[in-house]
């Protein structure tokens, strides 16, 4: 990774459907370059990935058909850092509680519950303490949001609300049930992109990052 790439890593945003531009704005604010991921080829040269909010069933179906889902799984299993919010958290979970089968990326040792707080009239916003990003609490916007029902030993829960885990991380993944991209608070995006930078600094020059370099 060149010095420029290390300071301004290239983060892909899954752009099948959902709140894509909001994440692009947030990533730009913390010094990352962004590109949209709609097909497997779009994964080339990425230093990290964001899976945004949207409808997880739409993500799974559209990305599944084109082979993108398999390609995502392979890259993420291979250590590509990823941030998932709301539907993005669902896509990264190893399992869904109480729901039917739906195509996922999987790989993170958590089980989530979809629409856990109820339908849209029960969607809410509230202050959520996220100690790893410091004080003050983040303003959590929960929209037909999931929660984390259970998490395995590889996973650190980094925020709780109403007695439920609502954000977590493992070695390469950060997930949140709420939407920091809808607020001006960039601390979670900064934590993610800083992690990508650190990983890049400790890494060899990889062939696909050369292909993707601008």
């Amino acid at each position, binding site marked *: 990774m060149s010095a420029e790439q290390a300071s301004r890593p290239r983060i892909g945003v899954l*752009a*099948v*459907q*959902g*709140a*894509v*531009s*909001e994440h692009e704005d947030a990533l730009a604010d913390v010094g990352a370059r962004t590109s949209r991921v*709609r097909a497997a080829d779009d994964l080339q040269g990425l230093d990290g990935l964001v899976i945004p*909010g*949207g*409808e997880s*069933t*739409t993500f799974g*179906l*559209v990305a599944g*058909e084109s082979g993108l889902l398999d390609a995502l799984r392979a890259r993420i299993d291979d250590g590509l850092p990823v941030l998932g919010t*709301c*539907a993005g958290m669902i896509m990264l979970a190893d399992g869904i509680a109480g*729901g039917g089968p739906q195509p996922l990326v999987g790989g993170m040792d958590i089980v989530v519950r*979809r*629409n856990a*707080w*109820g*339908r*849209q*009239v*029960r*969607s*809410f*916003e*509230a202050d959520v303490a996220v100690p790893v990003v410091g004080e003050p609490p983040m303003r*959590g*916007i*929960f*929209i*037909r949001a999931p929660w984390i029902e259970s998490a395995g030993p590889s996973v650190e829960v980094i925020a709780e*609300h*109403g007695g439920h885990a609502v954000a977590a991380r493992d070695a390469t993944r950060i997930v949140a049930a709420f*939407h920091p991209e*809808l*607020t001006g608070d960039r601390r979670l995006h900064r934590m993610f992109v800083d992690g990508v930078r650190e990983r890049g600094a400790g890494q060899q020059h990889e062939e696909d990052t050369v292909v993707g370099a601008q």
Partner: protein
Amino acid sequence: MNDDVAGNGAQGATGTDAVKAGLARMLKGGVIMDVVDAEQARIAEDAGACAVMALERIPAEIRRHGGVARMSDPEMIMGIQEAVTIPVMAKCRIGHHVEAQVLQSLEIDYIDESEVLTPADEASHVDKRAFTAPFVCGATNLGEALRRIAEGAAMIRTKGEAGTGNVVEAVRHMKTITQGIRRVVTSTAEERFAIAKEMAAPLELVEWVGANGRLPVVNFSAGGIATPADAALMMYLGAEGVFVGSGIFMSEDPPARARAIVEATTHWDDPAVVARVSRGLREAMPGIEIGELGEAGLLQTRGW
């Protein structure tokens, strides 16, 4: 826009602007499909719809049926809510406060105050600020969109001409809104007072558009989309997603067409994908030339 009606749920503040407009942000890039029963709702969900609109008759049938078109039977709406996990929207008549309250009590995810139904009030739309459930409203130009947003709409869709399978009015309305935004952006602070008066829109919203170059809420396209290429065209023109009403379930092969329109909406700027998904879809819904409808046959002129 305001948070006057924000309530306090068990977990935090419900019905805030951020929560209401936020759901529309999550729908972006997606396709919202009209469905009349649970089976159609499942077909829509399995095709990748990001939401469904529950209604008793799709707009083309409403046209054929004539008479007064009203809010759908709650039982039918609840059946659809049970059938799918994606958001469920439903329509109330323009200005029908109580139909909107009924839909909110059913925990509908988005209320469409829609010109497709027969208006209940010729002078006023619903005061949407008074609801926890978010509203989407139709618009044909920037002034109309900003009036609806001032009333509390958390999402806008172009009206187009529903039930025709003819995209020409959706195109007109999307371009008219975009041109309106461009005009506000290039205007001076003094000129914006006159624009607000001319558009019959609140000055502060005109000024917001001038500063930001877009509507304050998400803007979808609706009214006449019948093919994958139609959906891609509306995305090309700046729509943030599409509603497809009659276009899917009036066609010969609804599951395949639904799926193709979803793919074309995601990959709107890749003609090879739009070509691939358009192959072998069988017949689209029969279209109607707008001129044949006459003034009285237009739905888009309902509301102000």
